[in-house]
């Protein structure tokens, strides 16, 4: 040992050890102790309460699985939730509270497009990343898009695009629309009209249905008087369930033909006998694809003590789960919890079909933040394999073929420099 005395070496080592003993573990503990906090903005009551709870189950399952693996970037994930009540005004208050008082750096969850849009407005102000897990209004990745928001469900345009051309050719050109009088209904109906007219059909009437309508007899009588070939619906939540039930009671499910953008699994579960016509979905628990059975079993194990849970997962819980899982992967790829870096890690993301348990690879459009994915068309299953087998999957379409072409023209994402920086 040259140039340093033994005494000096021992002193330096002791000081170093003392410093490491103080500073090193303190740093380590600090990183461990500071979890990433997520705000789950799920509807637990109101029009979309039932589906909102299923969305919540999927998100929670992804969080639990990630925490079981040690969290993200070595940090535990914490979550809080509050009922957004299927009400945009309540959602605004919840989002404000989560961001300003609960220290949530990322928000997840929505069914109602008004709720999703309200949360986006709040999240925009602080640059908080928001994952719209299940609201499928085309406007969410169109005029209401945002740099901080990613839309994980297939949107109304995707579903309608998969169905319209075929329906105009094979069923008829005269269409009537039943449109829920809020943002999802209007934006889906506008897309449907464009596509029907492009395919050579005609919208003879668009019947607007106020939210919370429970009696559809006046509408169903009018539809009979108008005698359309096809009725295209853009209805959501409890309104849609009541409509389906009343259509089934009248035996009008087959004539005229009914086309519904998406049948959410929690809505179907309560009244499967009321399913009619052709409808879309993004996932089904009986898809014959690798990983599906195993995912169903994991989901069932996770929810075994939840008395309100449906026996099998559906599209809503699936979307919640996938969105959350991909968020964690994006954070790990980014190696950071900085919002801009996470956004960059999600933009343009390509997700292999096998990992998403769908037929085709999915991708996030970097210009709209819409997750483009396989779109399935289904009908009521005439030969169910068991008491959960309510869908008969008719077709699956590649995301490129059903991409919402109008969305990029409507969506203007602000430059990164204009997004406030957030670090979780």
């Amino acid at each position, binding site marked *: 040992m040259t140039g340093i005395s033994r005494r000096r070496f021992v002193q330096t080592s002791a000081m170093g050890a003392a410093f490491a003993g103080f500073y090193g573990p303190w740093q380590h503990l600090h990183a461990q102790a500071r979890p990433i906090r997520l705000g789950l903005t799920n509807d637990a*009551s*109101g029009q979309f*309460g*039932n589906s909102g*709870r299923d969305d919540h189950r999927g998100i929670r399952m992804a969080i639990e699985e990630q925490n079981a693996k040690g969290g993200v970037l070595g940090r535990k994930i914490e979550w809080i939730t509050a009922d957004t009540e299927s009400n945009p005004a309540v959602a605004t208050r919840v989002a404000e509270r989560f961001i300003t008082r609960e220290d949530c750096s990322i928000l997840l969850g929505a069914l109602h497009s008004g709720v999703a849009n309200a949360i986006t407005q709040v999240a925009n102000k602080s640059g908080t990343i928001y994952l719209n897990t299940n609201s499928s209004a085309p406007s969410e990745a169109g005029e209401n898009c945002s740099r901080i928001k990613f839309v994980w469900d297939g949107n109304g345009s995707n579903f309608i695009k998969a169905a319209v051309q075929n329906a105009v050719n094979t069923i008829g050109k005269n269409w009537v629309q039943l449109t829920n*009088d809020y943002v999802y209904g209007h934006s889906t109906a506008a897309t449907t009209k464009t596509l029907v007219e492009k395919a050579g059909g005609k919208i003879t009437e668009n*019947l*607007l*249905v*106020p939210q*919370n*309508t*429970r*009696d559809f*007899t*006046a*509408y*169903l*009588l*009018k539809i*009979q*008087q108008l005698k359309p070939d096809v009725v295209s619906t853009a209805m959501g939540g*409890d309104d849609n*369930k*009541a409509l389906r*039930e*009343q259509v089934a*009671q*009248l*035996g*009008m499910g087959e004539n005229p033909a009914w086309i519904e953008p998406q049948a959410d699994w*929690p*809505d179907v*579960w*309560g*009244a499967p*006998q*009321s399913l009619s016509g052709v409808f879309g979905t993004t996932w089904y628990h009986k898809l014959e694809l690798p990983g599906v059975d195993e995912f169903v079993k994991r989901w069932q194990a996770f929810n075994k003590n939840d*008395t*309100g849970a*449906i026996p099998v997962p559906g599209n809503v819980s699936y979307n919640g789960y996938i969105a959350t899982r991909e968020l964690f992967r994006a954070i790990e790829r980014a190696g950071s919890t900085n919002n801009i870096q996470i956004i960059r890690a999600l933009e343009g993301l390509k997700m292999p079909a096998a990992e998403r348990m769908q037929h085709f690879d999915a991708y996030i459009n970097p210009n709209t933040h819409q997750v483009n994915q396989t779109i399935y068309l289904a009908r009521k299953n005439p030969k169910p394999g068991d008491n959960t087998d309510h869908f008969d999957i008719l077709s699956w379409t590649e995301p490129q073929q059903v991409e919402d072409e109008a969305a990029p023209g409507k969506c203007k994402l602000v430059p990164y420099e204009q997004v406030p920086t957030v670090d979780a």
Partner: protein
Amino acid sequence: MLNLLPHLVNGLMLGLLFALIALGFTLIVGLMEQINLAHGSLFALGAYVALQFLGPQPPLPPEAAQHWLALAPGWRYALTLLIAPCVVGVLGIAVEVCMRRTYGKDPLYGLLLTFGAALVIEESIRLVWGTRDHVLAVPAQMSGAFIFQGLIWSTYRFYAAGLAILVIALTWLVIEKTPYGAVIKAGAHDSEMVRALGINLPRYRLGVFVFGTMLAAFAGIVIAPIWGIRPHMGVDAVIPAFLIIVLGGVGSFWGAVLAALLVGLAIGLTGAYASEWSLLSIYVLLVAVVSFRARGLFGKKSMLEA
């Protein structure tokens, strides 16, 4: 141009259903001067109790359940229409006993108490039956559809409207043609005098509240096959019920029935001719009536107007 007749028929039928929904609410407001905000939750509970009795596992001892399930579906349904409101009526007793402390005090106490009861009942429903939707199946004879005026109509809606007429008539008979009804009305008008006559008024009040509760539950059972069953379905009932009693005039039985028919017609006709107005129309109707007649269609004149 659309044929108007089917929409008038539909509007009247809808009005009868609204009258059924509002009946229990009207009774309690009119005879007890209490606003029962738990009306909607009791309406929902009626539907859930009926669901249990009409399902494969009725809430009965094993032997009784076997006999029950052996009955024809029509009989089971008819008996459920009687049993389920009685079950909910027991809860009505509990709510009324709690409400006694609020009588004669600021009406806000009664409002808060029944609002709290509504929340407790709704959450209890979630705990017991879960959050998913249910469908209340009706006997085959009452379900299905038929053709009238070249259009398909739901058979069940006509049965439901018929049941509404029956219950409206029975309620009117109880209030107007029985000594019990006379005491109740007298008690609402001058409770001290009725007590001075040696009548046990709290017992009569309990009777009114339980009857109102049972009517709410009955309405829930009748409406459930049309609206579907979900924990928060009561909200869909309590808002129109409130609107109807204000429109008809607080305390007026026939005012409430007429108001319900007008509300049904407003929704039915606007649904056909200006669909985006179908729910808003009832509020426009309320504003129009109250603007010219502040006490509603048949409401009693207040001291200030005399």
